[in-house]
């Protein structure tokens, strides 16, 4: 048998006899390393792993940036004619594509599901080298202006909606009233670049020509959309900034020549080349970095705990090691022995950690798929395995080194001579102190940061919106874009629908308005006769909107029914906007110029604040119907309206209408608060886990320290110390280490504040002081408990037990 195998067998035999130690180390290290491997792999995918497209470093998105006169960025959005102009005339991309993200209702399916539809030119598939499972991608026959109604399904959509039907190429699907022949299904391995937002995956790809923008907007230079993109493969020897500069001048001039609205006087359009990777990742690298820091802290705590366990274990082994030394084992042999044990333990823990990481990937994909980019690509790969092996090796060596460092080789002989009561192996006070300091500083930092995040999230979750959401459901319809229904016809049918909805016994009130939690149009507007213009979130509402959602009026009047029916030129503003329009006196009666029409302010309402907004922005409300029909239904108590019922009523009114979405405002609010809920849950779990691990660790260290001092404490009791004296002594001995831990964590928090003050300005404020104090109190209590608990067996027994070591 080779020496290595012999050592491993001995190590296993030793560990097998200490199952508690084995399980504790494997569980603690396995969970901590599993979490670390999970997040390290995510960080690798997000930061270093190339995108899965050929020549990926040359793939760019060309953004149209709207800039105001102060060079401030208003938005990144294209006007349709500008987008077409740059697509047709640019020569910096060797391959390019137009992309537009929309959603719709697949009316050809019995369930009429809502789908995410993406309108693209064929270049999209060539750029990404997309493979198909069945059929083909778009070709020359689907180029712009060819109007060939064909569709390509994503693999998941094909599986979910069509059950993976192999005859899918014989089928047509209907969207927006147009029948599209299915010509292909993308390969399962195809990873769509999520340019429209993290987690936004296309169900069905359609040719660019069929995007649902109406004719006026296709011709308008003053109407901008954030959903349209131009992407391509850069083929130029010039730098990105040079290209941007060269393209911007003609692009802006073309727009300026064609936009006939003084409202855009102060705007400039600039072109910006954004690498695909940046467009996909956004600022998620910071999120991943934060996660990595949190998990690293957790691993440090776990390692501190395990270090302590290893030291106690080595102390337990002193007689066995002494026998080995007596039989001729040198220091080196004893180290090999210890390394075999630590290596074996860490190896088993790493196997467990890989299992945990594997489960962690599924959790990440399930819960954070819509929050973190490229999560679908996270899996155990070569990088994960290499990291696992490297970490295992380093930790194995570290634990063996720490254990070996405790051994006074010369004193091992005394161990045998004094019947096992020698002091050949002991954890020094210095090491114990540093273990306590490291635990306290890390736990304070992690718990404080997580409590801060939790507090911030809970504040947003509990903040009132400023209007009612209970018992209100939102109904969004899609109109068949192929129908040639006039605005008047549509308005009349929708009024009829409103009456039908109001007649439902479950319904108390109905409003045909843009949803309060939905996106508003941002329209350039300002006081008539002045040049001052602002982009204001503007919603189209009816006369019932404010009463239905109980948004209070502070001045003037709500819209009347006739205001809505006649689309009178009235406008209601919120308090923030009113303040901007007239900082002194009443704003009622003020004239506002908006899209070349003058509106009179007829009322002021209290501001509402969306969960994602830090401040209340300016908002305006106009009495008219939006092109996208939406209804708010206030239900009677304990009543509900099903999607099937809504679809039946809608289809009765007109076959050109489809139910796109039906959900409660509470659900919409919860969706908007997803980040906050996720943050609250993650930070609570991380804080609790850290606290729990640290509590175990501190208990372990202090229990061991107490055990080592058992005889001394027994002596103190024997010469007259009372229990409180001993508790006081042990707590006092650890207060210094605890205080140093607190100071270190405070210094780190302060350094973070100094280093990242701009990024943290919204998080770090005076309110955090009580939170920091609370954290310190919590950890102090935990440490005091960890001091007391192992001590109680000593102080609650007669001193003779401690003196005899019984």
């Amino acid at each position, binding site marked *: 048998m080779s020496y290595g195998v012999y050592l491993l067998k001995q190590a296993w035999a030793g560990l097998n006899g200490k199952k508690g130690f084995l399980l504790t180390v494997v569980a603690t290290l396995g969970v901590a390393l599993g979490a670390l491997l999970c997040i390290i792999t995510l960080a690798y995918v997000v930061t270093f792993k190339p995108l899965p497209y050929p020549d990926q470093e040359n793939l760019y998105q060309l953004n149209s940036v709207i800039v105001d006169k102060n060079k401030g960025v208003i938005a990144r959005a294209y006007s349709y004619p500008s987008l077409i102009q740059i697509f047709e005339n640019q020569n910096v991309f060797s391959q390019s594509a137009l992309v537009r993200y929309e959603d719709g209702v697949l009316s050809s399916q019995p369930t009429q599901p809502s789908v995410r539809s993406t309108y693209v030119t064929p270049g999209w598939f060539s750029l990404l080298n997309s493979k198909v499972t069945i059929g083909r991608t778009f070709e020359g026959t689907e180029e712009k202006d060819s109007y060939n109604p064909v569709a390509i399904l994503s693999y998941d959509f094909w599986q979910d909606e069509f059950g993976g039907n192999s005859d899918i190429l014989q089928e047509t699907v209907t969207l927006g009233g147009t029948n599209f022949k299915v010509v292909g299904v993308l390969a399962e391995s195809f990873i769509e670049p999520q340019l429209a937002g993290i987690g936004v995956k296309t169900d069905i790809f359609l040719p660019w020509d069929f995007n649902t923008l109406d004719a006026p907007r296709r011709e308008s230079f003053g109407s901008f959309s954030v959903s349209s993109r131009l992407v391509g493969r850069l083929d130029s020897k010039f730098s990105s900034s040079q290209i941007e500069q060269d393209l911007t001048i003609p692009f802006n001039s073309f727009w300026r020549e064609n936009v006939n609205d003084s409202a855009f006087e102060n705007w400039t359009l600039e072109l910006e080349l954004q690498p695909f990777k940046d467009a996909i990742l956004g600022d998620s690298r910071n999120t991943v970095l934060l996660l990595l820091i949190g998990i690293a802290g957790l691993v440090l705590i776990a390692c501190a705990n395990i270090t302590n366990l290893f030291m106690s274990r080595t102390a337990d082994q002193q007689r066995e090691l002494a026998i080995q030394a007596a039989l001729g084992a040198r220091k080196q042999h004893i180290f090999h022995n210890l390394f075999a044990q630590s290596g074996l333990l860490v190896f088993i823990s790493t196997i467990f950690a890989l299992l945990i990481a594997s489960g962690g990937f599924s959790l990440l994909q399930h819960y954070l798929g819509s929050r973190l980019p490229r999560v679908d690509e996270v899996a155990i790969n070569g990088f994960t395995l290499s990291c696992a092996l490297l970490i295992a090796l380093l930790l194995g060596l570290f634990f063996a080194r720490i254990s070996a460092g405790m051994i006074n080789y010369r004193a091992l002989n005394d161990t045998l001579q004094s019947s096992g009561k020698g002091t050949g192996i002991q954890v020094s006070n210095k090491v114990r102190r540093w273990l306590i300091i490291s635990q306290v500083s890390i736990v304070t930092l992690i718990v404080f940061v997580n409590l801060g995040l939790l507090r911030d999230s809970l504040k947003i979750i509990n903040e009132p919106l400023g209007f009612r959401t209970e018992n209100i459901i939102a109904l969004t319809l899609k109109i068949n874009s192929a129908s040639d229904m006039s605005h008047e016809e549509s308005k009349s049918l929708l009024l009829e629908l409103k009456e039908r909805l109001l007649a439902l016994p479950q319904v108390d009130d109905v409003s045909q308005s843009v949803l309060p939690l939905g996106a508003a149009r941002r329209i350039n507007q300002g006081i008539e006769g002045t040049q001052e213009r602002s982009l204001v979130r503007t919603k189209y509402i009816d006369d019932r909107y404010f009463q239905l959602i109980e948004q209070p009026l502070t001045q003037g009047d709500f819209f009347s029914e006739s205001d809505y029916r006649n689309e009178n030129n009235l406008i209601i503003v919120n308090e923030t906007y009113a303040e901007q329009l007239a900082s002194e006196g009443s704003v009622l009666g003020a004239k506002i110029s908006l899209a070349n029409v003058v509106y009179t302010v007829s009322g002021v309402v209290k501001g509402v604040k969306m969960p994602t907004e830090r401040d209340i922005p300016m908002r305006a409300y106009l009495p008219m119907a939006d092109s996208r029909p939406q209804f708010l239904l206030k239900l009677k108590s304990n009543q509900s309206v099903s999607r099937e019922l809504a679809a039946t009523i809608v289809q009765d009114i007109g076959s050109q209408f489809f139910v796109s979405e039906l959900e409660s405002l509470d659900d919409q609010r919860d969706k908007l608060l997803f980040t906050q809920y996720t943050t609250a849950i993650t930070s609570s779990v991380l804080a609790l886990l850290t606290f729990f691990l640290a509590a175990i660790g501190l208990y372990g260290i202090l229990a061991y320290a107490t055990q080592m001092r058992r*005889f*001394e404490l027994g*002596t*103190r*009791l*024997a*010469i*007259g*110390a*009372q*229990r*409180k*004296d001993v508790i006081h002594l042990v707590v006092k001995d650890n207060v210094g280490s605890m205080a140093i831990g607190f100071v270190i964590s405070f210094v780190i928090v302060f350094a973070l504040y100094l280093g990242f003050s701009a990024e943290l300005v919204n998080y770090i404020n005076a309110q955090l002081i009580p939170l920091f104090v609370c954290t310190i109190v919590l950890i102090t209590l935990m440490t005091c408990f960890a001091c007391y608990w192992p001590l109680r067996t000593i*102080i*609650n027994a*007669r*001193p*003779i037990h401690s*003196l005899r070591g019984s």
Partner: protein
Amino acid sequence: MADIKIKMENISKVFETEEMETYALKNVSLVISTGDYVSISGPSGCGKSTLLSILGLLDMPSRGEYIIEDMNVANLSLDEAAEIRCKKIGFVFQSFNLIDDISVFDNVALPLRYRSDKLSVKEIEQRVKNCLDKVNMSHRIQHKPNQLSGGQQQRVAIARALVADPAILLVDEATGNLDSTTGDQIMDLLDELNRKGTTICMVTHESQYACRARTQLKLLDGEISSTPIQQESKHLLNA
């Protein structure tokens, strides 16, 4: 007749397991008066240390009556027992039991710091110095215990036992960890302390030291095997 310091009547100590009861002490009765010098000896496992532990309130008897200076102490709580130990009992251990991390001065001062009636710093200093003078260790006042020899450590331990001016000094195999010369010196010191009025009760298995006491008790299987031998200490006679 001298004042009675300690009186034990029918003291028993039973260790119970699920299967059996083991008597470490069986109906032990003894009286120790002011200025006495008592030795308890016997073979290993006869109950010497158990008896001394009960005498020192480090352990409680299972049965019997135990009175120190007219106070029944057989069933005290942990804290009450600690208070009595602090004020009335001085303990000298076989392995010295000094605390390595603190100086000789602080080791000796410990019992004074645990008293409920706090003494002034000056008084503590005075008492510690006096006691270290008694055991000839004043010159090592700032040393740490591990810088001292075994005999010196035991002297410091004796000083610590005396510092609270206890009613009785309990000595558990004080020479067990020492060579014979140093052991003799420690015994001489104890003799001298007794001559000056300190009441001493000592456990030892070495007959040459046991016979230095005026009253010698022999324990066998937890019982006092014979009538206590009352005699003038040979050592004292020689002196």
